[in-house]
């Protein structure tokens, strides 16, 4: 196990370290890199316009960091696609990408199909529900990949000062991270506890990594990425960047329960597949929650399947597209 404190020192950045965009673009162009931005969406009409306007203007027109800005949509019924297209994003319906593989509804599906659809050597994923969007949400996580070839996967984290006392600033993730994911990592993958916000939806990854890992289509995609990349490349392949503050939708505890359930299923699958825990029983897809109506209580059952897409390199159409089956 490598020294977590050393890793935190060497592989944890702050976005301000990369605010010299002309220098960043020079380094990008020197390596001949292509960078694609993928924004996965489902009914995000309130925030998508602002994201596309900002990224297109600041990171394409003014500073040509991004070679493409793509919105990949799971079937929005609002004006998400119309708004994104009107401000110059490339807009795709997830169901229309790789139709031979069918369509599954979920954010992970969009992220996976982006590997097939987009051109970049680096793909940056940014959630569409960020209210305080800023160019740093992209350049902050892309820059470590441009400047350091040994880094392959960069996660964003956000400063959430829980208390301030004598210069010590406990920095934490969200509720699901602190109550579920970090305790699980502490038990089974202690080095991964160094990732401050393992569930953040903003990350930049090299294509060579993305095409080799499976993608759960639902809640478990971020957790599975960390475990799979960690197994393949070790903690050294990761970096993380502090993007300061992120304002987004508040999620109800009940919804976080569903998220936790999906993550747990994904996690258990990894434990089983890698032989860490033997003899796990067949896991149910039913999450049971309860609700009260006056003095009576009733059970609500949610079916949460964590289906997985295989590594993109195993898909024939992809291999043909990138020319490795000729």
């Amino acid at each position, binding site marked *: 196990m490598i020294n977590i404190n050393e890793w935190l020192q060497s592989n944890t950045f702050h976005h301000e370290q990369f605010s010299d965009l002309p220098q960043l673009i020079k380094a990008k162009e020197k390596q001949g890199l292509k960078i694609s931005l993928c924004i996965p969406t489902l009914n995000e009409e309130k925030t998508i*316009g*602002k994201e596309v*306007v900002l990224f297109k203007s*600041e990171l394409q027109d003014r500073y040509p960091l991004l070679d493409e800005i793509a919105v990949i949509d799971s079937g929005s019924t609002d004006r998400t696609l119309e708004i994104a297209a009107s401000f110059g994003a490339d807009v795709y319906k997830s169901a229309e990408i790789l139709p031979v593989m069918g369509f599954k509804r979920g954010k992970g599906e969009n992220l996976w199909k982006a590997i097939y659809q987009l051109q970049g050597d680096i793909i940056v994923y940014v959630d569409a529900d960020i209210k305080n969007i800023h160019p740093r949400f992209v350049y902050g996580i892309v820059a470590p990949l441009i400047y350091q070839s040994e880094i392959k996967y960069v996660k964003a984290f956000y400063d959430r000062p829980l208390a301030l006392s004598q210069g010590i600033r406990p920095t934490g993730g969200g509720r699901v991270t602190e109550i579920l994911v970090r305790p699980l990592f502490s038990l089974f993958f202690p080095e991964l506890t160094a990732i401050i916000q393992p569930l953040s939806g903003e990350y930049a990854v090299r294509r060579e990594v993305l095409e080799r890992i499976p993608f759960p289509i639902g809640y478990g995609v971020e957790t599975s990425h960390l475990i799979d990349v960690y197994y393949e490349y070790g903690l050294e392949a990761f970096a993380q960047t502090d993007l300061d503050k992120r304002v987004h939708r508040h999620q109800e505890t009940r919804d976080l329960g569903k998220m936790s359930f999906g993550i747990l299923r994904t996690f258990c699958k990894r434990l089983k597949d890698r032989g860490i825990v033997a003899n796990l029983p067949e896991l149910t897809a039913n999450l049971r929650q309860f609700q009260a109506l006056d003095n009576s209580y009733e059970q609500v059952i949610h079916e949460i399947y964590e289906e997985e897409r295989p590594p993109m390199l195993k898909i024939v159409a992809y291999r043909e597209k990138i020319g490795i089956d000729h």
Partner: protein
Amino acid sequence: MNNIDIEKIISRVHSLPGELVPFREMLLANVVMISEIPAPTFGEQERISFLEQRFNEYGLMNCCTDEVGNAQAILPGTDNLQAILLTAHADTPFPASENHTCTVDVEKIYCPGVADNSLGLALLATLPTILEGLGIRLQSKLLLLGTSRSLDQGNQCGIRFFLTNSRYPVKSAIVVEGIPLGRLHYRSMASFGGMISCTIDRKVNHKSAIEILNQIIYQLGRLTLPVESHTDLVLGAVSGGASYKIPARHAQLKFQLRSDDDQVVIDVTGQINSMLEEMGKEQGVSLHLEDIARTQAGGLDSSHPIVAKTRQVMTALGIQPQKSIYSPIITSYVEHEIPAIGLGLTYGNNIHYGDEYIEIDPIITGIAQLIGALMAIDGACHD
């Protein structure tokens, strides 16, 4: 400027809306980023820093923030013999605690302060890039100024400071406001903005300050205002009290008195003072009138070349100039005898409310109008 010159400008203006389309996202991005930085009057520093950073990124000359917090920069002209000032105020009436999150949809941008005046400030941040992209270079140097402390108790402190202390004699000025497209202001009314504070001493008087304020409002309504000088009294805002069940100890009324005659404002203000003095004789009632802002009457005639040429530019773009020619934004220029006009960039609504918005499509026409006006003024400066 002769007729041939203005015809050339008008001819160019016709093609500008099409040429401006590629710059739309850049402007909108600046609108969003500026709008999301809170800038209450006296608290504009972060927004001003952003503007100065934009000026620096473009490589403008003399980028700096002055001692009252105005961001300024110079875009050099071809001969630099004259200077045209282009300004937009940076402050908004919204406190920093207001949610400044922008929403961008296909037709509109919503955000507190987006119309007044984040769009105007974003135009300053984007214009150098636009002019370069269009291959337009003025003869005069263009002074770009994002002003601080403009609204309410700021009393246009930023622009007044600049005009008093600038090293560059300003030949003419354009004041940019977000909305409405079609505004062509070139005269200032005399005005007095005041705040009446009423405080009750509970030991000797049990009335509510709001009751006293109500009597004051009634008396203000009975003032005789001269019709021939277009005099108006606007009751703008009231506040007071702490709870529904306790008589208010304090109450305040903000108002503006305006007229196209300086003397009328002086006379009516005197009447208000006398009225307050009389009402303040009641035991335990303390009344105080505080200056918020004052402006002086004056400005350009409608036949002034700057006004006439700008009207031609607007007409060429299908913009119908509004009938109102008065605005307090012209006041500081009147005080310094600098010819100035005020222009708006687009349409919008709900100004100074949380759901304030601007329309996106007309912005292109608004910028074309501004550039045409700049070219016309530049030509007039060199006649």
